[in-house]
Structure formats: structure tokens, C-alpha cells
């Protein structure tokens, strides 16, 4: 059983939902990312999605674009991101880490080299925004052989036929993108998301995480009610941007954001 599967099973048996923060690695500075990851865990996170910065993040809004620019300015390469996870694993062997990014840095590194390094560092899952399963022939067996969970996106526009096919190619969880739009844009229609996620549950046995547009505890709870986990991104990255120069204040601000979400999600279990 993969670390991701283990964590999600354990949560499910307790009737709890996963809190999954997303931050861009290397933002505000590569030296701060590992400490930041530990802070996210301390604030109640179950799984960490770690963004790999890319020069052309086509699926991201301005908040994450700017985070990529900050991280790249300090030389945050994919190799360096992998090294961060390796360092994180020295003291945390429990919390699953999913790399989320775009294909080209992986292609430039070489898929096999990347898969080896990712597995060696204790990375658990790979979510490649611009890699639909149709194009994943080459990477899928490399990931599978190293127990790296391939995590794919489902969107409001995804047909039933594709939901089934994508789920076949996925392990760990599937990531339902709650809105038509880039990260950090419109607020979500909770009822619409609930209806759609319930439908996704009918088509796949995999856990369903929901992300895009979750900015506060109330929305987290509303989405948690119908899903297996909530992914919180832009609001955290925005907070990082606002506290770039003060790591202590930053950790406090992230804790202040995540704690209420954790509580709201756990209140669903009662």
C-alpha cells in the first residue's frame, strides 16, 4: 500500500477528510521550503502538494505565476525540489508528498532519471498538469515500477467516459478541479461541486480530492462534506507572498489559515 493510500484509508476509517495544502517549492526561497513543509504538517495537513516552479504555468493564475517567478529567480530546479523532499523525509516519514507541476522540467531531466530520483527522495505521487493519460504511455510504467502514484485531474468538462478512463490510469486519489478556470480565480458554486463530485464517486472507487477556489474554513467544510479531501493552494501562496521576508510571521499566518480548516473538516466527523 502506498503512503498516500495508507493515509487516506486511515482517515476514511475515522470518518475524517484530508487537508491537502499546495505550496510552490522554492517560494519565497529554496532554503525555507523544508521548514515550511514541516509547519504545514504541524498545522494539521495530511498530504502536501509541492509545486515545481515552471516558467510558463499555463493552468495557473497570477498568484501562482508570481510564486513560480520568485522560486525560479532563486534557481529552484526540479532536482533541487527533489532534494528538498529528501531533506523533509529525514524527519517526516509519514506525510505523503505529491509533486505537482508541468511536464517539460521532467522531460528535460529525463523521465527515468526523474522517476529514480523521486522514488529515492521519498516522493509519493506525481501530478503533471499538462499530461493527460493519453500522452502518459512513456512515464506511466516508470512511475508504476517505483510505486509513484500518478494523480490526474478531472474537470467540470470531463465526460463520464473520460472520468472512467482517467481513473483507470490513476492511483492514490483523483483531483477534481472545482471550476472552469485557472488556479486562484472565481469562487466556487458549492452545490454544483457537490453534485459533480457525487457523480465522480459513482464512477470511480478512488478517493476524490477537490481543489481550486477553496479559500476558507467554511468552503473547506462544505467541500469536505462531499469529498475525501480538500486541496488549498492560492490562498496559501498568497499568504506566502505577503510574508516573504519574515519566516516566523509566515508560519504563524499559515497556521492561522489551516487550523480553522482542520477544525471545520474534523467537525464533519462528529
Amino acid at each position, binding site marked *: 500500500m502506498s503512503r498516500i493510500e495508507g493515509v487516506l484509508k486511515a482517515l476514511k476509517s475515522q470518518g475524517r477528510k484530508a487537508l491537502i495544502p499546495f505550496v510552490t517549492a522554492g517560494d519565497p526561497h529554496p532554503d525555507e521550503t523544508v521548514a515550511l513543509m514541516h509547519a504545514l504538517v504541524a498545522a494539521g495537513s495530511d498530504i502536501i502538494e509541492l509545486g515545481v516552479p515552471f516558467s*510558463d504555468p499555463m493552468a495557473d493564475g497570477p498568484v501562482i505565476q508570481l510564486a513560480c517567478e520568485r522560486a525560479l529567480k532563486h534557481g529552484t530546479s526540479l532536482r533541487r525540489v527533489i532534494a528538498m523532499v529528501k531533506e523533509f523525509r529525514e524527519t517526516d516519514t509519514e506525510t505523503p508528498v505529491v509533486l505537482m507541476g508541468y*511536464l*517539460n*522540467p521532467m522531460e528535460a531531466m529525463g523521465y527515468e532519471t526523474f522517476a529514480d530520483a523521486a522514488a529515492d527522495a521519498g516522493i509519493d505521487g506525481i501530478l503533471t498538469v499538462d499530461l493527460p493519460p493519453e500522452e502518459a504511455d512513456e512515464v506511466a510504467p516508470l512511475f508504476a515500477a517505483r510505486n509513484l502514484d500518478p494523480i490526474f485531474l478531472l474537470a467540470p468538462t470531463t465526460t463520464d467516459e473520460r472520468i472512467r478512463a482517467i481513473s483507470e490510469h490513476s492511483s492514490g486519489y483523483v483531483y477534481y478541479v472545482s471550476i472552469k478556470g485557472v488556479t486562484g480565480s472565481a469562487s466556487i458554486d458549492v452545490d454544483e461541486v457537490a453534485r459533480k463530485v457525487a457523480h465522480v464517486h459513482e464512477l470511480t472507487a478512488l478517493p476524490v480530492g477537490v481543489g481550486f477556489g477553496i479559500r476558507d474554513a467554511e468552503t473547506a467544510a462544505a467541500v469536505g462534506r462531499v469529498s475525501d479531501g480538500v486541496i488549498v493552494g492560492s490562498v496559501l501562496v498568497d499568504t506566502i507572498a505577503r510574508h516573504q521576508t519574515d519566516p516566523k510571521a509566515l508560519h504563524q499566518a499559515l497556521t492561522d489559515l489551516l487550523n480553522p480548516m482542520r477544525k471545520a473538516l474534523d467537525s464533519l466527523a462528529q
Partner: protein
Amino acid sequence: MSVKLTEDMLKALPDSRGHFGAFGGRFVSETLMDSLMTLEREYLRLKEDPEFQATFDKDLADYVGRPSPLYFAERLTREAGGAQIWLKREDLNHTGAHKVNNTIGQALLASFLGKKRVIAETGAGQHGVATATVCARLGLECHVFMGSEDVKRQSLNVYRMKLLGATVHSVESGTKTLKDAMNDAMRDWVANVDDTFYIIGTVAGPHPYPLLVRDFQSVIGRELREQSVAQAGRLPDALVACVGGGSNAIGMFYPFLGDESVQLYGVEAGGLGIDSGQHAAPLCAGRPGVLHGNRTYLMEDENGQIAGTHSVSAGLDYPGVGPEHAWLKDIGRANYVSVTDEEALDGFRKLTRIEGIMPALESAHAVAYGLKLAATMDKDQVLVINVSGRGDKDIHTIAQLDGIEI
């Protein structure tokens, strides 16, 4: 190494997943997949629909002014002192470039699909103008994304778009040029996918764009075959076209891919020289990677981050290139070369002064290389340069380089 391309081989490309050999494909976020699959299905249907094709042909004739002439450049031929130089005059099209061939086709697709809102990216502004033009004609809402650097250097085209009723969005992210305009157009499309048609301006992007843009632009090469036989008495020996994303080049080359005797030359922007690193020549100096929905040659650093590009010509200032060109390079069917900013400016001046034809700075790259190539060929050989657009839009840039304020 070169392979003989049979008609069957050519018909089979791209394959059903949009691949040209190792290149092309559909690398986009999931939200867009359904739209791209619908577009592919509808396009393949309409491609065989006589009504759609008849409307397209009629628009090209009556609205664009096709066929564009094939012109024998007698004085330029004498200047080069080698092969006969002929010019395919895409600069004479309505709106002043080849770009309109494609926007007519895609706007027709948008209408057939019932989409009322159109978006486009643009570099030099020619594709933006061509898109704004067809949208004005069809009454479609038009949004053009343009890097803020390009907004500055192509101010004339920005104003043309506004006059035509389009909204121009100045893009401030990344390098503020064509690639960033394309990123923002994609972002807009993800958010408005239900009612919006994205008119991509070149043979790049996810499948089926490289296929359909190539098909729409192939009118250039189809006309040229007939004109060359009628006017020069034979097929050309060499074709020369500039390559930004590669749409004017593929449109010219495609109908000749099976003719082994026809040499193909794609001219990339060498900027300040390939060795300087300040250029936009991914086929000459890049390596394969994935950007904007397809696998192709890219300019990137060792970590897979897309590199900044430089060219005096905004329309060539792009770090990628259409996947079909990447494939033609790898199988050795086409040659990809580069000329520097300075050589291109020299080409611009020569064509202007010797033939009275002012080419776009993009096309001037093809002119510069064509002159060099012609000099190495025999006098009875036929070389055709694609003059993809006219130079009015670049006059500010050229005046500035000459230190003149206008």
C-alpha cells in the same frame, strides 16, 4: 538522411492523437480536453463538407483576394546572380499577411460550432489584426492577447485591432512577448471554454491546431504549384520561408512534401547570432520538449525552463515551433537555417530598393536567406521566396534603428 514521403504516409500524419512522429500531441490541462476533442471531430467532419469548403474558398477569393500572385523578381535575380528568384506575394492579401488565410478558416469553424466569443494571441500583431478583421465581418466578440513588449513595438497594429472593435489585452507576465500572450490566451480559454473559440495563429498548440492551421494555410503551396508550372514552366527547385511558429512555411511546403526534387528551407530568427544565445531559432539550436500543448523543439535551459528569445521581428520571437517542422527536420525532409537581425534588415532594404516591395521583418528573413541561396544555384533553377507579409507595421522599428523619429 532523407526519406521519400509517399502520399499515404503524408495522409496518415498527424496520427489520431495528433502526433507527427515523436512530436505534436495534446499536452493540456484536463479542462480543455473535451473542447479539443470536439474541435477535432467537428473539423474532420467539416473538412469533408462541400458547403464548408465552398464557403472557405469563396471567402479566400472575394474577401482575401486570392490567389496571391507569383511574381518574377527580375532585378533581384540579377542582384543575386544565380537562380531565378520568384516571390509568392502573401503580402498582398487583405490585412497584409498570410495570417488571414487561417483566421478565415477558423472563424468559419467558430461559426459552424456556434461560438460567439473569439480569443487569439499575437506577436507582431498580424494574426491579431487578421482575427479582429474576421470577427468584425462575422459579428463575433474578439479578445486579443499580446505581450506588453510587442504592444510597444507594434503600436500600429494595436490601433488597427482597436479600430476593428477588438479588445487588446496587454500581457505583463514572463518575457512579455508571444509565448506569454499564448499562456494568457490559454488561461482565458480554460475559464471561458463553453462559449469561446480560440483562434491560434500558427501551426503550434495542441492537436488539432497544427493540423487545421496547416490545412488552411496550404492554399499557399497549392496555388504555387499551379503558378510555377504555368509561369516558370516547372516545379520550383527551392522554397524559402521564414519560421516563427511555422504557419506560412508549412502552408508553402506541405503540397510539395512528396516532391523530392523540391528543396525546402525554413529560416529561423538568428537574432544577434546563434552563438550569442540571443535568438529565436529552436530548430537550429534547441532541443525537444513540451510547451503550449505539443512536443516540439524548444529553447530552454538545462532544467527545462523556457528560455527568453530575441528577434528584431516580433512575429518570429517565439521559443517553440510547430511540431510538423520538428518532424520534417528529424526525417531530413526540410532544412532549417537562420539569419541574423542585421541580415534580415539588409534583406528588407534590398527588396524595398530593388523591387519596390517592402516586406515584413519576418518575411525579410526569408528574403535574406533566399538571396544567399540563389547565388549558389544555377541560372536555370527556380527559387521561390514566400513574402509572408508586408512591412508597413515595421516602419517604426526600422526608423528607430536608423535613428529617425517619425
